[in-house]
């Protein structure tokens, strides 16, 4: 029997969406095949990596994660500029951790001012991420949306419980919405439908399937993302044909396996390299499952993943 390369029968395509505005805007999505199945279809836009910036100095980060940002962690703008100028960030994700009602509980207007300062000063696309507290996120993200109107931010997480108010603000002030659901393909589809009914344009919608790192449930998000891509590409499920954003860095670096030192457990090896690899390997698995945007932290993990993307798509 002669050898014939088997091909998947695709019938759908991932939507192509533009994030940000101006010269530094990026385009993601547009895939016509499973991730990196380039012998079967196209991946017109390479996955992008957004670098994290926090609106308060991080607590309990391992040394390896702090070191690249020494001197800028108390100034979100300087932090963002360092990511762009020193580490070549093509997108920034501002994590509004200080607004957490279980933490500093900083008021919405202060957080919005930080977002405003950042989006005025940088030209790469800006993701603004809340704390997944519905009431607080509604307050914070609505204010961010208004204060940064027409800046084409990417706002998340937008969940079922707060999608109406945040969604409406995003529509009014022309931002992209990241629909966030807890590792479930049906809930993801339902929220996309709800946001569509609300009036969010298909060109301004991305999905966050809720991701976790190696050792903390990677297999769940990995399979949910594979199922999303399967439904989108082979079952013409238009309501799942949106690009996927994965907020993976914070999930990786908070784990004890990323923090434990070599002295505490010699079998775990070098702590810095381990942290970098846990982030980069988790990100690689998510890329292979269908990630279009990865939110990452460590510059060396980012460099490794960028090389992986370029190797996987080499001409």
């Amino acid at each position: 029997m002669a050898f014939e390369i088997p091909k998947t029968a695709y019938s759908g395509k991932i939507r192509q969406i533009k994030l940000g505005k101006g010269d530094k805007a990026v385009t993601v999505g547009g895939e016509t095949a499973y991730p990196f199945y380039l012998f079967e279809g196209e991946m017109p836009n390479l996955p992008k990596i957004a670098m994290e910036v926090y609106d308060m100095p991080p607590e309990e980060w391992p040394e390896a994660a702090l070191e690249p940002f020494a001197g800028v962690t108390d100034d979100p703008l300087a932090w963002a500029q360092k990511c762009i100028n020193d580490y070549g960030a093509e997108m920034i994700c501002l994590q509004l951790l200080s607004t957490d009602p279980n933490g500093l509980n900083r008021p919405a207007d202060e957080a919005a001012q930080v977002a405003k300062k950042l989006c005025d000063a940088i030209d790469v696309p800006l993701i603004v991420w809340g704390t997944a507290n519905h009431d607080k996120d509604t307050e914070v993200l609505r204010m961010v949306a208004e204060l940064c109107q027409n800046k084409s931010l990417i706002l998340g997480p937008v969940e079922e419980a707060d999608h109406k108010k945040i969604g409406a603000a995003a529509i009014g002030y022309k931002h992209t919405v990241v629909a966030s659901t807890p590792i479930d393909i049906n809930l993801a589809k339902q929220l996309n439908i709800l946001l569509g009914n609300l009036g969010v344009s298909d060109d301004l919608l991305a999905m966050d399937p809720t991701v976790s790192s190696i050792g903390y449930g990677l297999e769940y998000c990995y399979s949910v993302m594979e199922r999303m891509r399967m439904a989108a590409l082979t079952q013409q499920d238009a309501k799942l044909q949106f690009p996927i954003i994965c907020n993976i860095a914070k999930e990786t670096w908070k784990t004890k396996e990323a923090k434990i030192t070599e002295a505490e457990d010699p079998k775990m090896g070098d702590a810095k390299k381990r942290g970098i690899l846990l982030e980069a390997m988790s990100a690689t698995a998510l890329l292979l499952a269908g990630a279009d945007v990865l939110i990452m932290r460590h510059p060396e993990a980012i460099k490794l993943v960028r090389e992986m993307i370029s190797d996987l798509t080499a001409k």
Partner: protein
Amino acid sequence: MALSGIEIFKLLPKTNCGDCGVPTCLAFAMSLAAGKAELSKCPHVSEEAKSKLSEASAPPILPVTIGTGEKTLKIGGETVMFRHEKRFENPPGIAILISDTMDDAEVKARLEKSKSLEYERVGLTLNTNLIALKAESGDAAKFTALVNKVKDGSDANLILISDKADVLAAGLKACADRKPLLYAATKGNIDAMAALAKENGCAVAAKGDGLEELATLTEKLDAAGLKNVVIDSGSRTVKQALEDQIIIRSAALNKKYRPLGYPTIVFPAEMTDNPMKEALIASMFITKYAGIIVLSDFQGESLFPLLVERLNIYTDPQRPLATKQGIYEINNPNENSPLMVTSNFSLTYFIVSGEIENSKVPSWLYVKDTEGLSVMTSWAAGKFSADIIGPAILKSGITDKIKHKKLIIPGYIAAESGGLEEEMPDWEIMVGPREGAHIPGYLKDWKP
């Protein structure tokens, strides 16, 4: 060429005797066609039918064993492209490379790493137990010396690497009883390699220059009666290697293309010089279909994440991992330390115990067997309610370890606090946070 269920049915006795464990011959034929049953289950099938069916009834990706005894490496036997469709069956073997050009100290160090780098997780031991020995010198005596050294110093399963059949034969002679994998039969040496594998009953790897050539090699091995076969498409760029892994699996599963229906072997170190990148490429092969991954070396910082990723990806999606029921001591608790209770879904346990560790507050955690379900799911299913939690804690022996009578329950089962107060007289039931992330804050404010 694979047969359909109906074609298979025609060759069966059609007596519906049920001796195969399936009520009808037709149902058995369908299972055979789907690769879900083995023909040997039918005691009545004729010899003629057997020979016709043996090919069609074999699983589309043959299971392969390397080594002997309890710790034999079992790979292949995969049935799906995506793990959610059923599950991935046999986790890839991860091998450490030892070359016959390395000095004694290096060989010893690598043997030690192969043995000592193992990790406990959810009651499982994650380890490698696979060593690849490379005849880099090209000298049979040197290679044999290395094989002897490794054989004496380790009971791991072995891979012998050389493209020279005579060198490989010399090494094999020293360890034939360990049933190593021979790597590799190529266009130039296939007859000698096939004979070697056959004589010694060993698994053999075929290495082709591309998939077409690889298929001609495996057809020759098959003709020689060899079934314990592992394949290498020869590609050494990341892009081509991924593509080959996908095509191999898809050809075997979706086209029932026999010549590629074997587990694969990959060499990430031959795709990069950077150990960090090598680890990343290896992680790709864990998700995308490798049967054996040979690493240039083992380091804790890369091996640990790879082993855990392998555990994650090869977890059966229908059977979540569970942690053992019992009392867990975190941060060296004493008799005045707080006591928390949670479910035994492994992720719940990892997150809760990780957050307690993060808090640095010495604590007791009682993990209740909830059949691997999370807090919310087990509570909804009636497996994590007051009448179950209360008696379990009172019987757990924790009362000998703590002086206070205060129990912190997950915020999501706050409704059980009344019931628990009845089940556990004199105890104060405290409702903890709903989310793991809020545990450190809660514990820091907790007073006995």
